[in-house]
């Protein structure tokens, strides 16, 4: 290409590009002035940001923790004793039977995939619209949702331990009674022991055959 035609073509295409830019002068601005009018851009209703757990509804079933690919949810539960009434979940009138002593979500590990939201039977773990929660300290990003403090948790743990100890004593007594009542008979069937360890699945530790 000749020297001058090169220049002409360069100039003409540059002018063509500039007209595009100039046409943009009259258009609507797209910049969102973020902190000032906060409602200018409304987050969609399905927005997936910080997790929230409604502890009134949580039954401690651990399904969310198992679904989490990142293992950022930690749940500890204590079984209740029959005298205790834990109430029902508001949504499905499901009876609760576990004290949730610990429900920690590490928001600094969460990958916001919402896989924990779907399996929840009482819909108590949800992703909210809150996204502005930066922190100067990383420890603050671990959210403790459990409503009870350490002392209360310890109390429930004690209760359960006592109850189980009592139950064990009672069971032993019953067994002894039964043994005393029928001494001549054939030895009563032994309580069902745990099933024999099943033969290791061929694939338990091996890849497919080649």
């Amino acid at each position, binding site marked *: 290409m000749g020297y001058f035609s090169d220049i002409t073509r360069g100039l003409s295409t540059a002018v063509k590009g500039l007209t595009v830019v100039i046409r943009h002068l009259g258009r609507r601005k797209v910049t969102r002035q973020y902190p000032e009018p906060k409602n200018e851009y409304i987050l969609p209703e399905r927005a997936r940001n910080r997790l929230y757990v409604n502890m009134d509804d949580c039954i401690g079933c651990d399904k969310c923790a198992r679904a989490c690919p990142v293992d950022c949810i930690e749940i500890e539960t204590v079984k209740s004793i029959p005298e205790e009434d834990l109430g029902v979940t508001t949504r499905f009138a499901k009876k609760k039977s576990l004290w949730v002593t610990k429900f920690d979500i590490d928001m600094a590990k969460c990958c916001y995939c919402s896989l924990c939201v779907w399996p929840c039977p009482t819909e108590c773990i949800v992703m909210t619209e809150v996204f502005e929660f930066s922190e100067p300290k990383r420890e603050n990003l671990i959210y403790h949702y459990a409503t009870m403090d350490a002392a209360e948790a310890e109390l429930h743990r004690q209760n359960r331990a006592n109850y189980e100890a009592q139950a064990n004593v009672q069971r032993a007594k019953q067994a002894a009674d039964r043994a005393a009542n029928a001494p001549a008979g054939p030895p009563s069937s032994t309580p069902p022991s745990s099933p024999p360890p099943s033969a290791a699945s061929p694939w338990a*530790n*091996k*890849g*497919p055959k*080649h």
Partner: protein
Amino acid sequence: MEQLGIIERLQSAFGETLGVWHASNSESAYARRMGSFFQVSDPARLLELAFFLRDEPALAFDSLLLLSSVDHGDGSLSVVYHLESTVYRHQIVLKITRPMAQARVPSVTSVWSHANWQEREAWDMMGIRFEGHPDHRRILLEEDYPGHPLRKYFKEPDFYHGMKVPN
């Protein structure tokens, strides 16, 4: 060409002892096409076989789709070659299995240059040596990283260059 036809072709050229055909028994045609593989028994003949597959006009496997490696967990490693012909649009999968102590296969970089980085990655991740590779270095990890991480019994180091690694 049908895959069985390709295998017959190979066996007529190299003899019946070349390898065994493992057909997939899946319902879908796609899985049968892309899930069946040809187990090559002798790695020493791989390079010869690769050149034949590429240069034979009726086969013309001009493209190596993927070179992958599998740790079977029982002390053996496999190298898998997915080949395709852009001329005839047929595919074939080759597999070579080696015990971990002798994880060496000839490099096919001279046949398909795509294999260059793929083989380096297989060495890096799985610890398979490729004999005759022009640039046999690690590719993703640093040279001094201990071990080959995609092996099933890999354990990550506690410290690396003074940085604590595990959580």
